[in-house]
């Protein structure tokens, strides 16, 4: 058990004993090696279940909107809201801030145990690194991973199997945590700008073909939406039947429309945690498009979500000098293309 896990367990046990939280959501080892998964704790002694390793990739902020969803109009005699403890990495923390900014979650009711993040392992990359052999166990040692796959044991460099989102993560440290665990965060990356630039460099027809092929694999299971902390509408536009924007089943233009509009709804709110990418059972490349939206919001409006609860969300405000080169001007003299 690494030091980080030990420190987390004592911190969480302390929070329970000091009655600062009613429940704690962290990570525990899963049932399919090497996965870890969300763990819901209600007592100090449950803290023994907590672990911290390279597989704690679930964004736990996703559970908060449901916990703090008000059941009806305020009547004044509501019971006190529960106090929830959360084990958060950098991106998860930004999701919490985004939710608090949108008044879905009262920040003062949440006690955050923050872990500066060294990056999470991608199960798909790890499986590829061992030739698709079934992984029976994976132990982290320094900056390597000793993986037991089938009958072989292989050592893999951690950096080679990290999630793309972690390799390019700009803010691995959870700023604003109530308790911060001693852990070494990884160096900041480029925020995925490279991925966006690479895709943008392709010819238009190639981009469209790639976009359409990726979307044709979507089975509309909505795992991407359900895994996203800032996707919490009671009834999603995709499921409404009056008006019925989308048809049933997995027709490709419905999938394109769904993902374009869902990603659009995350403009200025997506913290680039890639929970949607990891949740997708079909391994669809959503990342290229979520990064594009995040990059546009950064470049056009100078806004990065998940830091300042007070700052106005980009689409709720404007600036006089917002760019409008894209606006068609019929009287413009020179022909652009």
């Amino acid at each position, binding site marked *: 058990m690494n030091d980080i896990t030990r420190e987390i367990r004592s911190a969480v046990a302390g929070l329970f004993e000091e009655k600062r939280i009613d429940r704690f959501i962290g990570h525990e080892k*899963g*049932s*399919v*090696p090497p*996965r870890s*998964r*969300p*763990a*819901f704790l209600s007592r100090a002694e449950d803290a023994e279940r907590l672990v911290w390793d390279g597989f704690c990739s*679930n964004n736990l902020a*996703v*559970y908060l909107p449901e916990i703090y969803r008000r059941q009806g109009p305020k009547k004044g005699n509501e019971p006190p809201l529960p106090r929830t403890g959360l084990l958060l990495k950098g991106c998860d923390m930004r999701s919490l801030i985004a939710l608090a900014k949108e008044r879905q979650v009262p920040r003062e009711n949440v006690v955050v145990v923050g872990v500066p993040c060294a990056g999470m392992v991608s199960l*798909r990359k790890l499986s590829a690194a061992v030739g*698709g052999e*079934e992984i*029976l166990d994976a132990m982290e040692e320094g900056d390597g991973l000793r993986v037991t796959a089938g009958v072989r044991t292989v050592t893999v460099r951690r950096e080679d199997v990290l999630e793309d989102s972690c390799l390019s993560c700009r803010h691995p440290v959870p700023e604003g945590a109530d308790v911060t665990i001693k852990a070494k965060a990884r160096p900041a990356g480029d925020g995925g700008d490279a991925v966006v630039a690479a895709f943008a460099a392709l010819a238009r027809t190639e981009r469209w073909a790639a976009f359409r*092929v*990726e979307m044709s*694999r979507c*089975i*509309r*299971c*909505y*795992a991407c*939406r*359900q*895994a996203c902390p800032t996707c919490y509408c009671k*009834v999603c536009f995709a*499921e409404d*039947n009056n008006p*019925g924007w989308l*048809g*049933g*089943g*997995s*027709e490709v233009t419905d999938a394109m429309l769904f993902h374009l509009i869902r990603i659009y709804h995350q403009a200025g709110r997506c913290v680039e945690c890639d*929970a949607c990418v*990891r*949740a997708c*059972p*079909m*391994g*669809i*490349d959503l990342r290229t498009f979520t990064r594009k939206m995040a990059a546009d919001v950064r470049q056009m409006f100078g806004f990065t979500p998940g830091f300042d609860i007070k700052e106005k969300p980009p689409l709720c405000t404007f600036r006089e000098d917002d760019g409008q080169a894209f606006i068609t001007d019929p009287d413009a003299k020179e022909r652009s293309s």
Partner: protein
Amino acid sequence: MKEAILSKGRLEEFLGAMGNTAAVYAPVESGQNIVFGAVSGPGAASDGVRSLRLGASNTRLSVKGLFFPQREPLFSFRDDAVKAVAEPKAPLVAFGVRPCDAMALTFLDKVFGPARVGSLKHEDPYYLARRGAGTVISLGCNKPCSTCFCTSVGGHPFGIAGTDVLATELPDGSLLLEAVTEKGQALLDRHAGLFSAPSSAQLDDKGRISRAAEAAVRPVHAADAKARADAAFDSAVWEALTSSCLGCGACTFVCPTCHCFDISDETGGNGEGVRLRSWDSCQYPLFTAHASGHNPRPARRQRMRQRVMHKFSYTPETAGMVSCMGCGRCVAVCPVNLDIREIVAALGAKP
């Protein structure tokens, strides 16, 4: 039961031959996953057989999609009159189906066949037409994976339920084909020229491989699951087991036996349209929501309980079989690693 040997290297030839009279589907690569795709015959690329991928323990989506497609037109209409009814009768061969998926078809045959209990007889013409025109060639599991538990729910890595021909990869690289049904027998007879008779050594190999595979499947405590599930219906164990569920539909869409569907109309705007059947999931809140707003299963915990109860308690009573095939797909795809094996084992235990 007639056995035949397809010698090493002739598989692509066999798939191509079948393509002359049917659309042949088999596991192929699709992005990051292996799914069923057309490899020969109508709908397949000319070199489709080369895209065959048999290495994976199982396809990400089950064979159910070939007989119960995710989106299927029931009939088309113009203004107020039904115009034409979809008649899916094109002959089809599903190759490389794992025995758990094949066994799932025996359950779906019951669901879509004549109604089970109760006096009213209804049959689903679309599913039954596809099944009638379909031939299943299953591929035994020489190397079951850790999430497989078919032996705990009445299945077997070399089970023959629901298949027409069982294929086994032998150590010498050849395929032993065993006809299970007349349809399977007819298929082997039609392509007899490609086959040779199996040697007794090859038949012994198959027996050894089958026994080794059976031993490799990890058991799951699913014994008397129905009694334990019924007793635990109101217990708090459900809260503890399902609080991390995100409420997506991935587990039900990859499941070989989940058959719930929605019916909706889509119009092209000029009065023409189609009445569609499409997959739906009991995990979605709108699945049971009344127009009045009342919802018999408003909480995710209740919906996850419905999924497990349906497979381990309800269908044993209504269809005479547990409708979980132990394929482990829902365990593999769950974004938060909810594990049906753990849930079933925990039913009846103190939370």
